[in-house]
């Protein structure tokens, strides 16, 4: 694309974005009716939100369910604005930060007509936190701070914690925490794997395996006046090119996960004012992991050289034009109160503002470690966006300090297998989370054995000590200080793992789709209740 065309595309995109913002500011009157068609890149293996981890479950299934609390749907870009869905008020903890008492809305009904009470909420969280024998609960470990869950009456649920935890409210707002019927769970704890029955804004209509899931508006929804749509159709479409063309050809209005910049530009060029683009930093990080059990990566100097060679600030600018990455940040999601400021970050290895100084230090460390012409192969996922594109960029960056790196691309299963078997010198992985909850999200970087995702094969009791102290703190300032120590230890002092870039979420959608607001995760704000269709544009 030449410069002039690029400018036109960017102008159109910005114009579309401004138009959308302007329209939102004018507080448009929502319109009722219509079926929203959207494409989903994958199909969920089952219907059970407590069991699965894929976003492919959230997009077609979340609209059928209520949750206890959630990120504010009017402000989903916020990282800390949690509001009630089924409760009446987000409680302040008592008992030294260890007890949370939620009051449940009255008059809420499941789609089968049965009333939803505190007993259902209790049964739901028991199903997640204390699953019965044979029941898989994917996020059980995230709730390790919970000691007990009780419901003294039909309107009250009490969570008692083992210790105060800043991670508790965010983890409660996880979008997978669908509230299930106690009666159904008592009947069969695995009933929800193959069935859908919630109390959300849409009622399950049908699933055609491999093709689509459809839902109809819940006329008895407890948030009065919602949903605006008559229904939705979630269409499974694996190929990205087809999903882009589906939006272009109006077979779908939106894909909620995200497209690369090129697809955005193509759609804007083809559809002009008929397309609106929303963009956001994405709670997915691309992570570089040296295998500490392999020489010379057992030497911290070599590991530090790897990160010092990368010009993240320059790369952020260049790569964001072609790949779904943008922010150069630390381990904590950019902009979160617990994260480092840019000034603090610029003191960490790999983030120095003077890249030449940084590379000189990398060369010095390699020389000192006896590997001035280091050569290695790094394991990457054979997926263009953003893995292989960023991988290619890193090869070029490392070359500038005399490192010769080769990329070994493997399909997802082989990539996982290689990482798990420790069959790599350096590995590229991803840390993708739903709700932004840094206290839990950074658990990814804990030593091998303590973290299921840590592929670096190392022990670090000091790091565990920092983490264990941090998660038991109630005070944000103290948490922030410990988090900075944690980040410095992981990325600089011990150089266990490096955040390469944070992903960037780009959602071009048909302009007739209104009411949808982008969030930092493709898992969030997906109940579709506030969306409407306005074709009279």
């Amino acid at each position: 694309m030449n410069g002039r065309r690029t400018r036109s595309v960017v102008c159109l995109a910005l114009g579309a974005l401004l138009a959308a913002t302007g329209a939102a500011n004018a507080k448009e009157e929502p319109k009722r009716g219509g079926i929203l068609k959207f494409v989903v890149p994958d199909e969920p293996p089952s219907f059970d939100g407590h069991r699965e981890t894929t976003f492919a479950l959230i997009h077609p299934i979340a609209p059928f369910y209520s949750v206890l609390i959630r990120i504010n749907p009017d402000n989903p870009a916020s990282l800390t604005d949690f509001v009630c869905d089924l409760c009446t008020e987000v409680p302040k903890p008592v008992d030294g930060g260890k007890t949370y008492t939620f009051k449940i809305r009255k008059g809420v009904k499941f789609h089968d007509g049965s009333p939803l009470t505190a007993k259902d909420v209790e049964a739901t969280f028991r199903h997640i936190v204390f699953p019965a024998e044979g029941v898989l609960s994917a996020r059980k470990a995230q709730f390790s701070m919970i000691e007990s869950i009780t419901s003294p009456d039909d309107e009250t649920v009490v969570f008692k914690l083992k210790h105060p935890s800043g991670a508790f409210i965010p983890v409660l707002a996880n979008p997978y925490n669908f509230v299930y019927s106690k009666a159904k769970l008592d009947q069969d704890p695995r009933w929800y794997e193959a069935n859908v029955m919630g109390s959300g804004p849409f009622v399950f209509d049908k699933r055609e395996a491999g093709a689509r899931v459809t839902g109809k508006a819940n006329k008895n929804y407890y948030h009065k006046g919602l949903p605006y749509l008559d229904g939705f159709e979630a269409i499974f479409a694996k190929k990205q090119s087809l999903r882009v063309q589906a939006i272009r050809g109006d077979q779908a209005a939106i894909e909620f996960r995200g497209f690369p910049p090129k697809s955005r530009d193509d759609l804007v060029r083809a559809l002009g004012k008929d397309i609106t683009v929303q963009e956001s930093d994405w709670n997915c990080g691309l992570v570089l992991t040296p295998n500490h059990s392999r020489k010379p990566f057992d030497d911290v100097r070599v590991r530090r050289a790897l990160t010092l060679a990368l010009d993240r600030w320059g790369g952020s600018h260049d790569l964001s034009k072609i790949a779904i990455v943008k922010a150069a940040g630390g381990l904590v999601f950019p902009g979160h109160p617990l994260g480092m400021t840019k000034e603090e970050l610029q003191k960490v290895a790999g983030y120095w503002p003077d890249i030449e100084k940084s590379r000189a230090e990398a060369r010095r460390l390699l020389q000192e470690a006896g590997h001035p012409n280091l050569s290695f192969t790094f394991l990457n996922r054979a997926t263009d966006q953003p893995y292989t594109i960023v991988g290619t960029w890193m090869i070029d960056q490392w070359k500038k300090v005399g490192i010769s790196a080769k990329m070994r691309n493997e399909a997802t299963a082989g990539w996982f297998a290689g990482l798990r078997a420790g069959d790599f010198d350096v590995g590229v992985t991803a840390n993708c989370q739903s709700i932004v909850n840094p206290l839990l999200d950074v658990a990814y970087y804990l030593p091998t054995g303590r973290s299921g995702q840590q592929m670096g094969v190392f022990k670090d009791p000091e790091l565990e000590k920092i983490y264990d102290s941090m998660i038991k703190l109630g005070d944000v300032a103290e948490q922030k200080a410990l988090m900075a120590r944690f980040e410095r230890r992981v990325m600089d002092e011990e150089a266990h793992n490096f955040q390469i870039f944070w992903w960037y979420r780009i959602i071009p959608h048909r302009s007739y789709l209104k009411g949808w607001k982008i969030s930092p995760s493709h898992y969030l704000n997906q109940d579709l209740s506030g969306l409407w269709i306005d074709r009279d544009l």
Partner: protein
Amino acid sequence: MAKYVIKRLLLMIPTLFGAAILVFLLMRAIPGDICYLRMAGGGASVDLDVVRQCRVDLGLDRPLWVQFWDFISGFLVGDFGKSMWTGQPIFHEVALRFELSLQIAIMATAVSILIAIPLGTISAVKQDTWVDYAVRTFSIAGIAVPSFWLGILIILGILITSKAWFGQSWMPPITYRPIWVDPWYNLSMLIWPALATGYRYSAVATRMTRSAVLEVLREDYVRTARAKGVFETLVIRRHALRNALLPVITVIGIEFAFLMGGLVVTEQVFNLNGIGKLFVESVENHDYNMTQSLVMLVVAIFALMNFLVDIFYAWLDPRIRYVR
């Protein structure tokens, strides 16, 4: 003849058994783990205990020979088990997609025949003229151009043309409705992949038709017919083409079997929820049960088609069954 048929039927057993062993071992040789893929495929954090429990649930912790026995004994009694990915019965998952795959196979075969037989015949009759060269170029292009690429071009072409002509971009539907429910919708979705695939397969059949017709045109009975003053069109239609069609039909029949399970890429391009797409997804997901069942299904279809062709030849030419 009965002895010959039984013999051919019995020969199918070692073929199927060999395929079963091969697919069972190959699937397990591919690096990767369905549970890890399912729980952490999107980059999500996962508790290793959950992965371990998932493996136990799916029976992957059992010895290989036990897993093989389960597979083969189930296959013998027609019980394919459940998909490891969705937990749904495999028979149900395959049946859902079979209708679409069958319709596409029929439509693509029809397109292939409609292109191949007239073009192949014209090419033979006009041998070494510009018409012949044009047809041969057209058919070689069909072999050279991947059908998925042609599919993408077709979709883009429709989008651009519809925008230019009607002011709105239109593309074929991406969800399926059976032909008896909504014929127009159904055809507007399936005609494009049928054209893309049919053209690809017509290329082989066109060349086969050309060669067969050329061979027959040199036969004595054709020369005799011409000498008797029979019209050239009748010579071609009644004498040449009819006799040349036998090998062409064989090729088309085998292609049809391939289309039933082989449209892996075209189905992805057009978002067709058929057997080919299911195949790709089950391999990607390391769904051993589904992949094994689909491979066995395709092997069974091929074995059956080969069996039918053998029987057909034996019926046409008795020397074949006597020699064996």
